[in-house]
């Protein structure tokens, strides 16, 4: 097995091993899980170190025949778009496992195993180059999440788990139909072959919407976002973290890997719809977040709002550049290639940054929830008095969530807004309101939870974070700051791939 295969199967098989260890030997299960996840993370780093960022071609490619009847292959590989997301996955999994250390006392081994297996499956999603292999990983990753929400979730967990599953299942079956349709046309399930498959305008439109349903549900975009607040509120902290940090990115990744290159003309045709929905998500959902009383719900809505930047950044390019008749890229309204690249790269940076920040925010809520078993904002107030260290972290992450310069939250949003400015001034203006609304709901929450005087006597007795929590939050704080101050390495690795993607998106298939 080569590196990429190991990254997929080691956590899955490791998860099986952890189940065998059993719930009775919880400590062994914990240590084993953390060892596996750290090992996988370290191994995934060598994806980065030996990555060739000068090419858009797939790297670390492995290919073996799987279902020869349909020419379906076990074909995996990474490029600059998927590689950062894989590292994000391996990184987040460690945090989740450490964060669940002593919090999860019921069926501990199963809990850890579910996260490990999900890690492997999601890495599989990001590295599949065969559409059916992709679909298999994509769907299979629902199973551990279903169980995580349903078994370790809150009071209304059953409803949330089933809603989550059915929503995403409905979205993805359309994806399956369109993948099969493309196979009957082109005779190949290879995603790279699909990129070159010529499709008529009508076919592209159908396929685009089928993709859209699948990916928009995952992102989630307005108006198919309603499963997310339920799932987040009911999921255990670790589940929320993985959901926000990684699972949502699967939707964004889908737009990069499928929608733009496979249906470029339909993407152009419907870009305004997608942008409108993104802006609604950014502005309207931002306001919805403002009125939430439940901290997790607030962060869930804030996630939806922030993910709006991803789809905005992806589709803004169609208002900046177009393909001229002579095959050269020409600009619309004086936009530049750099502007379009900013949008796409900003979307990628936003995905990674949101992975850090949303993970951190959910962990912050998790820390409070573990102590007082309440997610209501009104339960708290004056937490700084009893938990000064914790408040420091919380405020930092809140600032990052609000998009303060110097934190990773700023970079992606700023890049996307700059790009939107070239597309249409109003897109930029509307998107920029998030800097105000986002600051409003985040800081208002901080004010009500952390500042002020203590109204609830239970808050007075809170213990500040322990070493384990401190460790997890420190790592995330470092990630947020490094990404905010020096995002260049991340942008560099994806540059060639994004550049290639831009060409694919602008090249008409008609």
């Amino acid at each position, binding site marked *: 097995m080569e590196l990429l295969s190991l990254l997929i199967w080691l956590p899955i098989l490791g998860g099986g091993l952890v189940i065998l260890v059993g719930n009775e030997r919880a400590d062994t299960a914990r240590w084993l899980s953390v060892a596996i996840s750290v090992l996988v993370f370290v191994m995934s780093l060598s994806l980065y170190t030996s990555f060739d960022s000068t090419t858009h071609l797939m790297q670390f490619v492995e290919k073996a025949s799987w279902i020869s*009847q349909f020419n379906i292959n076990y074909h995996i590989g990474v490029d600059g778009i998927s590689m950062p997301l894989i590292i994000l996955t391996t990184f987040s999994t460690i945090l989740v496992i450490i964060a669940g250390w002593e919090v999860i006392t019921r069926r501990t081994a199963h809990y850890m195993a579910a996260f490990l297996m999900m890690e492997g499956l999601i890495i599989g999603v990001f590295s599949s180059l065969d559409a059916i292999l992709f679909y*298999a990983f994509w769907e*299979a990753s629902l199973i551990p999440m279903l169980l995580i929400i349903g078994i370790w979730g809150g009071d209304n967990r059953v409803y949330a788990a089933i809603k989550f599953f*059915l929503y995403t*299942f409905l979205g993805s079956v359309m994806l399956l139909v369109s993948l099969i349709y493309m196979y009957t046309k082109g005779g190949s399930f290879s995603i790279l072959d699909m990129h070159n498959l010529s499709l008529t305008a009508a076919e592209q439109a159908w396929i685009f919407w089928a993709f859209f349903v699948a990916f928009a549900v995952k992102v989630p975009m307005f108006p198919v976002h309603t499963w997310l607040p339920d799932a987040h509120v009911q999921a255990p902290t670790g589940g929320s973290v993985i959901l926000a940090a990684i699972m949502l990115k699967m939707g964004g990744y889908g737009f990069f890997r499928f929608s733009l290159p496979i249906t470029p003309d339909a993407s152009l045709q419907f870009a305004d719809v997608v942008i409108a929905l993104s802006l609604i998500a950014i502005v309207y959902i931002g306001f919805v977040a403002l009125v939430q009383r439940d901290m997790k719900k607030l962060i869930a809505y804030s996630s939806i709002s922030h993910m709006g930047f991803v789809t905005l950044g992806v589709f803004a390019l169609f208002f900046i550049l177009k393909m001229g008749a002579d095959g050269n890229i020409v600009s619309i309204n004086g936009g530049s290639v750099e502007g379009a690249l900013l949008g796409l790269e900003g979307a990628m940076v936003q995905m990674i940054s949101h992975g850090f920040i949303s993970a951190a925010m959910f962990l912050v809520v998790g820390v409070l929830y573990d102590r007082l078993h309440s997610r209501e904002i009104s339960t708290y107030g004056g937490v700084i008095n009893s938990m000064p260290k914790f408040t420091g972290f919380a405020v930092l992450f809140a600032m990052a969530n609000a998009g303060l310069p110097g934190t990773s939250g700023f970079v992606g949003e700023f890049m996307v807004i700059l790009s939107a400015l070239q597309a249409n001034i109003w897109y930029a203006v509307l998107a920029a309101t998030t800097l105000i609304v986002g600051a409003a709901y985040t800081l208002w929450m901080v004010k009500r939870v952390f500042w002020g005087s203590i109204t609830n006597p239970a808050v007075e007795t809170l213990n500040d974070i322990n070493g384990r929590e401190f460790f997890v939050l420190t790592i995330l704080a470092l990630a947020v700051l490094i990404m905010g101050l020096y995002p260049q390495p991340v942008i560099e690795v994806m540059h060639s791939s994004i550049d290639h993607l831009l060409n694919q998106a602008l090249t008409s298939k008609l």
Partner: protein
Amino acid sequence: MMNTFQFDTTSLLVALPEIFLLSSIVVILLLDLFLTKGFKQVTYYLTQASLLMTGILSYSLIGQPETLIFGDSFVLDDMASVFKVFMMGSAMVAMVYSRHYLTQHDLFRGEYFVLVLLSILGMMVMVSGYSLLTLYLGLEILSLSLYTLIAIARKRSGAIEAALKYFVLGAIASGLLLYGMSMIYGISGSLNISEISAFASDANLASRETLIINFGLVFLVIGIAFKLGAVPFHMWVPDVYQGSPTSVTMFISTIPKIAAVAMLVRLLVDGLGSMHAYWSDLFMILALLSIALGSVVALMQTNIKRMLAYSTISHVGFVMLGFVTGVITGYGAATFYILVYVLMSLAAFGVIILLNKKGFEAEEISDYKGLSKSSPWFALMMLVVMLSMAGVPPFIGFYSKFFILQQVISAGFVTVAIIAVIFAVISAYYYLQIIKSMYFNDAEQELTIAAPMDMKLVLSINATLILVVGLFPDFWMKLALSLF
């Protein structure tokens, strides 16, 4: 055109599995009379042994060139042999599960096993039948044994009702089928499938002849749809599933479906393949209605056997979609689907039977509450089965649906595929209900498992296969395709 009947002892070798099984049935039936109460298990082991031997004999005939014997009324081809091997394997698994159920509910009798073997003999005749008469003969051997099997639990409330309902409706279906056969025979002048095929594909067919063939065809389709349990001929399915003892339900829902598909292939594909344009329209309607009704009505069930009955109806719809395509790969997809379905259905009923105890039948979905705590391994098995039935990868149920959808789309029915997948999502809801009960709810009653080791082992293998074959489906897909 009458074939001269030439009896040749070597031709008997072609029917060796059937002959062996029939002889075993006679031996077991007689022997069982002389077994005292303490030795009743001998019947069980003899049954398993004869199933195994029949399976081996059938296996040894795989790869033989297509041979017709008994005046061309009995065929040996790869489809027949492979189906027989699968039927024997499934039957052996079903018998392992049944034994536990029968001992727990005081139904352990020699007749039970003899009837099972007889019905399997009927199915083997159906699978190999190459004339209208043999097919009908096989069907009746199967059906009559099944009616009696249900009624064997005469103390069980609903069993007699189920048996009678099955008998009356099954008799009507047989009648319709026979009527259709008489039409076909009347116009083509032959009972033989290949002669019917030659007659029906004649380009100079008068419109009057086409009309009569079509008339008969409609009745054949109804008869087959009835046996498969496709909507609107599905009324018997939920009641029979619920009323029968669970081990019989398991049997009815699995192996006879393979035989029904085989009969479908013999009659409609081998015999009236040239009339495909006519019967595929009928199948399309039946298939979509089955998928829709099976998925929607199952949502309201609280009894797991009824739920699985509706789930079967929707699975049958998918199988029929494979036949709508009218291409060999489509038939292969349908065959693959039915074999996969049998594997999944066996495991599902296996778990239900596993939880059976004296005086307790795990028939309500709420009976599964908290199973993941008291028995995590078997809860996991049920999880695998349910997700597989819902068509979630990487389990085998996904690939069978995928194969069908791929064929349906490449035949140009994209809308049909979209309708089918939407209902597949709806049906996922009720499979999730079982998972919900097992994993998300706490137990209301103590769930202990009294099943013997052999049953646990076989069930584990059965469910694990759903995952393993799912990870490596290539061989099975190729096998299913090679049968046509």
